[in-house]
């Protein structure tokens, strides 16, 4: 822990301190008049990026850290919005004064990627060419396009070189892509719970989610806004599928098991269970325990209740076209493809030092995929450390507060801080 930490004054000790929140934050935005050329050949003209920053850029402008977001997150990485309960940023447990990515030392930047639905130009916005919302006409964006857009915002902020780029999952892909697109503009990359590309199984999950959205009668070929509709049913199913893949079998078993929800006698489409209907394998039903309702439509198991809740919540705020775009960006990411699948050759241009982290129970972005990245980096004699955290939570673990994981990220940023004397 550096002397500069003393400024905050309310935490003591070293790695034991968990830090505090950055407090209330306000998003900022920048409008770009110069068009952004996309990998597909299309052009995004007249767009804006929304972003947040935490901490202070030092006089040498050397302590900036870019945090890249994954599928359903945004520029709101840390802190809260004034007057809004439960408005913590998605990586608030990792980023703040005295936290593993310490905002007393680093200037942290979160940027909402174009195509998203949290303020940066996306499919809900008006297409300057037509005067109507983009909807399905929003151009397909890739990880590389996002990285280019992020680099442009850094130009605006006067940041030539980043101390580090950090991201988990799809965010990790952006961090990796940064090392290839702008090798001179960064010192370190933290690639967490990520992969060098998606496996067929992973693309398959994305495709199921996309089909759920596209086949929703409210989708209207992606121009649902013009029809005053939202394909919420599709979004719900897409989110449910996603959620299943973010959790491990063990954690789902432990959290929900085969537990049933308490019977709701007024439930639509089902009837109250007959006396003693529980325990078809014999023995009287416990009086207090909820029983099977012999309904194919009711929510009976806790896991169903959980998934439907997650799906409902998601469908209220997330944009369907954004979901399609971002899952496509995931599918397309494959830096090795330009090198006949040779990841070693693809990563040869990387100059950053790496921390690669995976989680043992993550089956969506398994440790094996992270090891592929590590191997390609070792083959290129890149500086890399790799940790495989034995956490039970599956892919979601990268967002959770595992002490081994956070200690590692803290230690790594301590080294970066020492390097740049932040």
């Amino acid at each position: 822990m550096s002397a500069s930490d003393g400024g905050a004054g309310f935490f003591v000790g070293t790695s034991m301190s968990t830090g505090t929140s950055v407090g209330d934050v306000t998003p900022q935005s920048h409008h770009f008049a110069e068009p952004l050329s996309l990998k597909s050949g299309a052009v995004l003209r007249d767009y804006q990026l929304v972003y947040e920053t935490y901490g202070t850029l030092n006089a040498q402008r050397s302590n900036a850290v870019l945090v890249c977001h994954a599928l359903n997150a945004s520029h709101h990485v840390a802190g809260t919005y004034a007057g809004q309960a439960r408005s913590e940023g998605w990586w608030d447990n990792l980023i703040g004064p005295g936290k593993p990515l310490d905002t007393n030392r680093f200037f942290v930047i979160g940027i909402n990627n174009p195509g998203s639905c949290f303020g940066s130009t996306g499919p809900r916005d008006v297409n300057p060419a037509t005067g109507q919302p983009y909807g399905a006409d929003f151009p397909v964006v890739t990880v590389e396009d996002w990285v280019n857009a992020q680099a442009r915002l850094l130009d605006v902020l006067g940041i030539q070189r980043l101390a580090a780029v950090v991201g988990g999952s799809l965010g990790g892909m952006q961090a990796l892509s940064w090392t290839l697109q702008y090798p001179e503009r960064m010192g370190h990359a933290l690639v967490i719970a990520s992969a060098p590309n998606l496996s067929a199984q992973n693309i398959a999950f994305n495709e199921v989610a996309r089909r759920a959205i596209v086949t929703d009668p409210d989708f209207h070929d992606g121009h649902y806004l013009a029809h005053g509709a939202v394909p919420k049913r599709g979004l719900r199913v897409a989110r449910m599928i996603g959620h299943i893949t973010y959790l491990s079998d063990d954690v789902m078993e432990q959290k929900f098991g085969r537990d049933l929800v308490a019977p709701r006698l007024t439930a639509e489409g089902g009837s109250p269970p007959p006396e003693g209907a529980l325990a078809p394998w014999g023995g009287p039903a416990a009086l207090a325990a909820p029983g099977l309702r012999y309904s194919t439509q009711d929510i009976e198991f806790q896991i169903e209740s959980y998934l439907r809740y997650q799906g409902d919540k998601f469908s209220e705020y997330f944009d369907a076209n954004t979901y399609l775009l971002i899952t496509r960006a995931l599918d397309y990411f494959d830096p090795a493809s330009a090198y006949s699948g040779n990841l070693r050759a693809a990563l040869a241009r990387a100059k950053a030092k790496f921390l690669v982290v995976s989680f043992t129970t993550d089956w969506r972005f398994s440790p094996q995929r992270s090891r592929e990245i590590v191997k390609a980096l070792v083959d290129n004699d890149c500086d890399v450390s790799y940790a495989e955290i034995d956490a039970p939570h599956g892919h979601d673990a990268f967002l959770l507060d595992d002490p081994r994981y956070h200690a590692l990220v803290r230690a790594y940023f301590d080294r970066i801080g020492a390097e740049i004397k932040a």
Partner: protein
Amino acid sequence: MNPNALHHIARLVPEGAAVLDLGCGEGQLLALLKAERRCTGYGVEIDDAKVLACVQRGVNVIQRNLEEGLSIFESNSFDVVLQLDTLQNLRNTEAMLRETARVGRIGIVSFPNFAHWPNRLSVLRGRMPVTKALPYQWFDTPNIRVGTFKDFEALAGQCGLRILEGFGLHQGQVVRQWPNLLASTAVFKFERGG
């Protein structure tokens, strides 16, 4: 490992070598090699706390169970592969030794010498030794492969390795006279024969 012993082993590593340290612990040797001999490279370690210590030290570390092999490392990708006080904890000692020779041009190993005289004395008295170098009881020792200085010479020959240097270490001192009898730790530097 005793700091003196660490220096005796570091001395075996050429200046500027690309080094792989298997079972690198908290990364002391790699840090030493980096600082004093301009070496580069990686450690491999399974233990969470030791991986963290390496990262704190600024040493490249890859978390991996050595029993799962060295498939992530290409043949001849390192000048030196070190395996200090690790070989005796591995089930597939022989396979690991061959892998070490595949990945590195030079291998350096150290392990507790079971033929050190106090161990012999202990066995002569009818009990398995419990010493500074072998501090465990027979029933809970992680040292599942207990060999001697001479045993290694035989295994090296069997694996087609040419021993370049072999000596004993005891209490941080190099033992070149009767190492099989007088040293608690055996050290070998070798390359692929042929």
